[in-house]
């Protein structure tokens, strides 16, 4: 790591060790100095930023049905009985007279709705119908390569975001954090110098470090054992060499040793930051509660990390540390059967999603002690077939919905109005009218099953990086999203053949 020496020096000063004992928890006011972020062209934004610009990512794994999430009821055959006979939504929350939110997404307040950008028809050309390939493309920001590579967030941490320093508690900071049991590919890296932490379990709201918390203490309170674990960490000069030394030693020549040591070092460092800066009694600054347990309607045991807790913990990291991008994931959006319509499995998940988004929006936005300007982004690897299958479900398809919520989001609907929605839609063989829901096209016709993208997910990422986080140098952005520079320049220069999928949406203020 580029600032490894400063970290080691800080650690050797003993700051970490003292802090790790829990004796030096600092008041929150001592952290998180609000920054004035630059605008896309480098000049100050039009208003003073309320706090550091950050991003909370929520990945819906399995392929979210964008059609029933943001219902294009203005495309009238949507309600044809041959299209979605048991799962159609007849009472969406109308937004623009053409599209409406699923009725179960009812947690958004007027303030939340005004800060909620809903972008339909997001995907990429020739999109994969495989969960695993699709997710990898979305998470690396690079389509058509499955080689092990850095995630797009990890690349942003290396190339675009401010380099982390040492916190007031003496702990090495981190720029990004995957709040999930398995390191999400967006935050992953095969390069030892680029590793980012994943922090699935911070500890409870009362500030306890239970058995499954992100701590080697694993809930023990025995002084002798705590002392032994401090010896294992080896971050204090007084306790001699420990794991930190081992991980910082030169690696063996075998393939994974350097990476394993880097993650080990990051583990020790992250544990320090979590224990000293985050793990304290916590109360949300909002009134909307985070959904409890697993996603509502499903047993909690389906979730290694309960979704609501994961979102709350990501917010804690964003508010209390210098972490700029935190990401959570929630699975089982793969509704091949029993999807349900206005009620049912999909509805339950959408309700929990809206609760989590609203809770995070309030928790982040109302906190005057630890203010941030955080953009919440929601994505999924693909959408689902326009036609319901025989099992009351939908199968893998192409474009889906992305969402962005926060003080810098321009609330409203994108790509779902009479002008944009029908672009590329086939004409119904009987009526001659354009529609994505023709009951008269043969099932073998891809246009009878899939909605094709109007916007590439990478331009949505680009806008978040450039417009929200202020990473405007196209050469830097090219390192994060390969190929983006040429695509953006074509549009900036008004090239007639510019790829329409890469036209900016303008969903940010």
């Amino acid at each position: 790591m580029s600032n490894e020496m400063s970290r080691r020096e800080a650690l050797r000063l003993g700051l970490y060790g003292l802090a790790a004992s829990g004796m030096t928890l600092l008041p929150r006011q001592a952290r998180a100095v609000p920054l004035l972020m630059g605008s896309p062209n480098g000049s100050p934004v039009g208003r003073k930023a309320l706090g550091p610009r950050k991003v909370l990512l929520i990945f819906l794994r399995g392929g979210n049905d964008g059609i029933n999430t943001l219902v294009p009821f203005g495309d009238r055959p949507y309600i044809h009985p041959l299209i979605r006979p048991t799962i159609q939504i007849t009472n969406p929350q109308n937004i623009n007279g053409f599209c409406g939110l699923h009725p179960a997404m009812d947690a958004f307040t007027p303030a939340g709705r005004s800060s909620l950008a809903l972008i339909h028809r997001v995907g990429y050309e020739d999109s994969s119908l495989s969960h695993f390939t699709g997710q990898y493309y979305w998470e690396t920001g690079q389509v058509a390569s499955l080689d092990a590579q850095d995630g797009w967030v990890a690349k942003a941490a290396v190339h675009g975001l401010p380099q982390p320093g040492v916190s007031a508690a003496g702990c090495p900071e981190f720029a990004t954090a995957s709040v999930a049991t398995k390191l999400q590919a967006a935050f992953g890296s095969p390069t030892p110098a680029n590793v980012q932490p994943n922090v699935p379990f911070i500890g409870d709201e009362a500030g306890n470090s239970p058995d499954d918390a992100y701590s080697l203490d694993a809930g023990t309170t025995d002084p002798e054992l705590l002392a032994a674990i401090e010896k294992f960490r080896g971050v204090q000069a007084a306790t001699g060499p420990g794991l930190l030394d081992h991980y910082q030693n030169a690696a063996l020549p075998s393939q994974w040793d350097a990476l394993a040591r880097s993650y080990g070092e990051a583990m020790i460092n992250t544990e320090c930051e979590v224990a000293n800066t985050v793990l304290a009694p916590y109360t949300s600054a909002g009134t909307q509660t985070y959904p409890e347990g697993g996603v509502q309607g499903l047993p909690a045991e389906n979730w290694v990390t309960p979704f609501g807790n994961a979102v709350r913990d990501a917010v804690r990291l964003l508010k209390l540390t210098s972490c700029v991008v935190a990401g959570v994931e929630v699975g089982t959006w793969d509704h091949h059967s029993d999807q349900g319509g206005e009620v049912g499995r999909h509805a339950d998940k959408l309700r929990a999603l809206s609760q989590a988004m609203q809770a995070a929006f309030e928790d982040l936005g109302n906190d005057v002690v630890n203010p941030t300007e955080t953009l919440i982004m929601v994505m999924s690897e693909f959408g689902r077939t326009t036609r319901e299958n025989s099992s009351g479900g939908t199968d893998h398809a192409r474009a889906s919905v992305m969402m962005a919520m926060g003080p810098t989001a321009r609330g409203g609907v994108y790509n779902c109005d009479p002008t944009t929605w029908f672009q590329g839609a086939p004409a119904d063989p009987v009526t001659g009218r354009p529609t994505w829901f023709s009951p008269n096209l043969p099932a073998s016709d891809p246009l009878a099953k899939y909605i094709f993208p109007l916007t590439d997910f990478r331009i949505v990422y680009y806008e978040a990086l450039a417009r929200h986080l202020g990473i405007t140098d196209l050469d830097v952005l090219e390192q994060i999203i390969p190929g983006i520079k040429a695509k953006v320049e074509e549009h900036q220069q008004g090239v007639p053949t510019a790829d329409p999928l890469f036209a900016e949406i303008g969903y940010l203020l």
Partner: protein
Amino acid sequence: MLATFARVVTPARGCSLAASLFFGAALLSAQVGTQYAEAGHFSRRLTVGPTPALLVEISSNGPGPYIATQLAPGIAATDPSANQSNAELQLLLTSIGVPSTPVLDPAVEYSIGDLARYEVALLLYSDWQLLEMLTYRWERLLNTNYSSVRNYFNDNPPAGGESSNFVATHLEHKEHAAFRANAFGTFLDLLEFSAKSPTMSIYLDGVENDASGGQEPNENYARELLELHTLGEDNSYDQTDVQNLAAVFAGWNFQRVPDAANPGFDTYEFFFDSAKAATITPGMQVLPQLRLNDGLGTPSNVTLTGTGQVDGEIVLAALANSEQCAEYICKMLYRFFVCDDDGTPAAQALIGQCMTAWGVNVGGDLDAVLTLLLNSPEMADPTNYWCKANMPVESILAPIRAFGGRVRRNSQLTTLMNLMESGCGQRLFRFGPPDGFTDVSVEQLGTEQSLFRVAAKLRAFLTYDPANLAQMLDASDNAADAAPEVFYNVFDLLASIGITVGAWTNETAIVDQILTVLYQGHHTAADHASATEFLARSPDGLTSVPLLTLATFVEEDSIQWGKQIMQTVAYCAAFAQGNQK
């Protein structure tokens, strides 16, 4: 406590002659343990991790005899408790209470947690390590999720009044037993069992797939059959093939029937529900890109009959006999046993040979493929040593195997499995995504993986309860039994790696032995120095207490030594190498 100490000077128990000789030699080695590098490599690939005895065996005889033995597990393939030499395993299996043969008998109901512990116990202690490694590999390839099955039976209560938990566990157990019984059989046997398994039918929606009346079939199973189970993504199939196969497998269902193998009990088995079947035109051809695995590129010409169940069986057989499937599974096995990079010229050549061993129209001869692969020069190539990152189950269990840890109770397994499953995400029988828990190296690493793997080692070696340390230092089984969370008796541990009482004062020798049994010389000089200094510090690390200063045996010293040695074992097990194999 004095009585406890008195046992210190008794001859070490459980110290095999072979291990003593082996580690005696190791002590004289300038390069710690490197003479066991090859034995260590084969131990890590074929088993969950080396034991001293296994290192001696493979080092003495070469890997060939061990591979041959492992490929012929005999009765252990159908009765995992049979033909086992390890007494710990028998105790543990008794404690867990899962029968060798799955029976839907409410009188012996067991949970999915019990079944998971049963699998971990076998991974930990079975003599037939390759069998267990492969059984678990097939489980991950043909993944199902207990929770989906349980939820199905919550909605559709079993006719016999059994709990949905037990029925779901029973069906997962049947599948697990079939994978073990056919681990070295044909791939088609595995594939067909999976395709007809109620667990798969529920998990990937076969039970919901209804193509009658021109309805849109459910694509879930058809897509994953091609993408995950047999060919690999977009390898010689397209969306039309997915839709065609979704129609072919419509009606593949299951029903409750008397259990022929267990008279008096029911079970659930496959049946073809013609009422849900699609209308298939006789003579219809599917999977036009499929080629027979004959080395000639002969088209498979997969032709359907339109007569129902047999069409699905035709498809499964065509897939298992295809060149593409042979390549897909041979590559998978190469990556699992040899190295992740299957694109090198040497790898390609070996995979080609494995495809030949797969056979023509025999369903995929796994025994022939594995015999070839495991005895290949690439398998033995030292450049492939340590070229993989290991899974949590290997990282967590290997040190326990290495030092003869005694895991005798459900509670101990539960402790480890919570860290493996909740902490590291490797959930047995309850993994949600259909690709199963991956063994791809780069995906094994992360800060949370590091943390919970280290935490598991601290749990195992320190027991997280200092009150247990006295029992750890008591060589009697009775004392250990009284402290059920104790994994180790320090003296047994030291004996198992050839450390005699007289060598206790030699920090270098102790670290040599620990690193030899764990990593067979795969460590840096800095690692060794770090471990040596770690050992020579008091249990809280604040005082330097070289063992050399503890020249006389007194009770307090022995306890302190015990703590320092056990800590050092845990410390070395927590090295980065512990996440690799």
